[in-house]
């Protein structure tokens, strides 16, 4: 007799679909994703609030020279934050100026006294205003003296300007690279660990509940492995893309949006590298799951993986200089370090491509290795296997 049904060509899709549906219905997964999103949004939000607050400083003055000082103060405050400003309020006498400060109508008063300049605050002195005023007074006075000496303001500016030059990169990008490498390392570590363990756990559960015998008798083991790996990789990548999206949208709402062009490309690269780095380990996770007879054995069989990821995490934000450059080509570690180097802006176009090719080649090897162990140890029921034992098994 013949059967009306045949092996579905998309058996791996059915397996992958189940992996995703089960995970998406898992309360702890939903909660942890939401918490991470809230943390990202909150981090960006707090930064935006701190950085984006409009601060207007009204400074009471009694003469034109003080007024010019306040205009320079305004310019220097705006240079550091475009929502900060300083406005001069011209009053008739020092007493009136102080009265305005006391009444809260002005934040400070800049007075010309016999002893020199005096900056009056009500109860507390603002450091940023004090420093800006100090500098502005000098600028204005030197300008006045220079014009008396026949030097034009432009010439003066040109002569007194000090340019900062870094031999490599520029300072704000270096800061940015440091922050993003930290973020990439944490995200990669968290996500690779979460979803890697998920793969191992789902394999070990099927093994311990013996459902694997039914699955293996119904579909080729390769489909089972592919379905698990692809399902969980899809989820991991989706979660990572969601985090990236929230970060980018958040950044757009903050003064840091000027860094967006510098961050977007590395984020895209990070997602690509994440995919390659995750795939490189996915089949090994599955193999670790298949070697554990019970979920309790998982911590032992996954130790090499968790230690490896710990190392990637550690090196991800401690490696610098030549070490960083070399490691940025090493598979899996490159998932963190190459995007970091892209943010810092010192990579040639071929470097990420080469790192990616190496990563994919490595993934190819681990897939073969993982599939072999997975296939052989999946139906072994005699407790936990070591990597050495698993590799010696025959079909």
């Amino acid at each position, binding site marked *: 007799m013949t059967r*009306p*049904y*045949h092996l579905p060509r998309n058996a791996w899709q*059915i397996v992958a679909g189940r992996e995703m549906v089960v995970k998406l219905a898992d309360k702890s997964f939903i909660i942890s994703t939401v918490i991470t999103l809230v943390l990202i949004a909150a981090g960006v939000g707090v930064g935006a609030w701190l950085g984006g607050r409009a601060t207007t400083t009204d400074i009471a003055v009694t003469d034109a020279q003080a007024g010019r000082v306040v205009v320079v103060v305004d310019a220097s405050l705006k240079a550091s934050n475009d929502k900060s400003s300083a406005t001069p309020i011209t009053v008739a006498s020092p007493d009136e100026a102080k009265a305005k400060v006391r009444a809260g109508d002005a934040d400070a008063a800049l007075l010309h006294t016999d002893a020199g300049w005096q900056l009056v605050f009500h109860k507390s002195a603002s450091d940023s205003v004090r420093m800006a005023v100090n500098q502005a007074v000098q600028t204005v006075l030197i300008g006045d003296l220079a014009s008396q000496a026949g030097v034009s303001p432009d010439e003066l500016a040109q002569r007194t300007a000090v340019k900062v030059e870094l031999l490599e990169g520029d300072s704000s990008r270096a800061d940015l690279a440091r922050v993003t490498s930290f973020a990439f390392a944490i995200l990669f570590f968290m996500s690779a660990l979460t979803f890697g363990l998920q793969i191992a756990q789902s394999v070990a559960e099927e093994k311990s509940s013996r459902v694997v015998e039914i699955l293996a*008798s119904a579909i080729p083991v390769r489909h089972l492995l592919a379905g698990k790996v692809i399902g969980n990789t899809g989820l991991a990548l989706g979660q990572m893309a969601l985090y990236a999206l929230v970060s980018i949208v958040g950044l757009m709402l903050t003064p840091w949006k000027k860094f967006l062009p510098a961050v977007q490309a590395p984020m895209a690269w990070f997602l690509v590298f994440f995919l390659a780095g995750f795939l490189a380990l996915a089949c090994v996770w599955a193999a670790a799951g298949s070697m554990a007879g019970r979920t309790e054995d998982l911590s032992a069989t996954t130790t090499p993986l968790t230690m490896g990821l710990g190392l990637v995490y550690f090196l991800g934000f401690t490696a610098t200089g030549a070490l960083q450059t070399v490691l940025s080509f090493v598979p899996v570690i490159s998932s963190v370090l190459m995007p970091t180097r892209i943010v810092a802006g010192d990579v040639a176009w071929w470097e990420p491509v080469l790192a990616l090719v190496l990563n994919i080649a490595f993934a190819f090897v681990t897939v073969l290795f993982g599939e072999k162990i997975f296939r052989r140890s999946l*139906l072994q029921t005699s407790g936990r296997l070591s990597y050495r034992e698993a590799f010696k098994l025959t079909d």
Partner: protein
Amino acid sequence: MLEIHELTRSFGDRLAVDHVSFQVPPGQLTGFVGANGAGKTTTMRMVMGLLAPTSGSVTWQGAPIVDEVRRGIGYMPEERGLYPKQQVLDQLVHMARLRGMPAGAARAEATELLGAFGLGERTKDKLEKLSLGNQQRVQVTAALMASPMALILDEPFSGLDPMAVDEMADQLRARAASGVPVLFSSHQLDLVDRLCDGLVILAGGRVVAQGTRTELESRGRLLHRLVTDSDAGWVRDLAGVTVVDVDGNRALLELAKPGLVDRVLAEAMARGSVRELAEVRPTLSEIYREVAA
């Protein structure tokens, strides 16, 4: 027809299955009997392709069995195996889809089969919420779905109450009647005795007996029980009659040839009234003990 030829498997030095050969013909229930460790599960796993045989082969309709055929066999492993935390209906649909059934048809069939097993109300429950007996019903349902070409069930009746055994037996008989070869293992001999058309008895990794119920009975000793109204001690003197037991007016006899039964009856009637003279067929347990010893 599913045929097993000289199937052998050793684990290290231990020979778990030793040149096992038997047939699972369509249209009947074949019972696979043996003590724990006799090699039943190992044999079934080799048939399913889950374990590679050391030597020997399995054929389906006369040709070596291929994966496409194996995937059409409804299989229930010894240690069960479904997702404890998934809803009953959902996982049956998942399993049937893996075996090529469209989701809609799978849902309809699972609902119908669960209904037949009295689980119509529990389709949305997680498997682990069900009693062990009900989990077993779900497990068998998984094997019965997606039009299996054959059924290989490892201990499908263990843990079931008598009512559930009857339900399950009806289901299996119906499948067998539709032409599906059914092989199931059990160590509940009375049950196998009642249900099976064919029997394979395994001991120490070897097939020690196989055939239909009648064929196996003929291998056992056929005895006759005689009950008279007076002392039956005289049977000891009859030629060609071996006395297994005599107790007052009752005797259990083994006759050298079938025709002797008339002589025994004539002798007994000559000595008085005969209350009973009957054939005593060996029970399966007796045959089993005899061949497995």
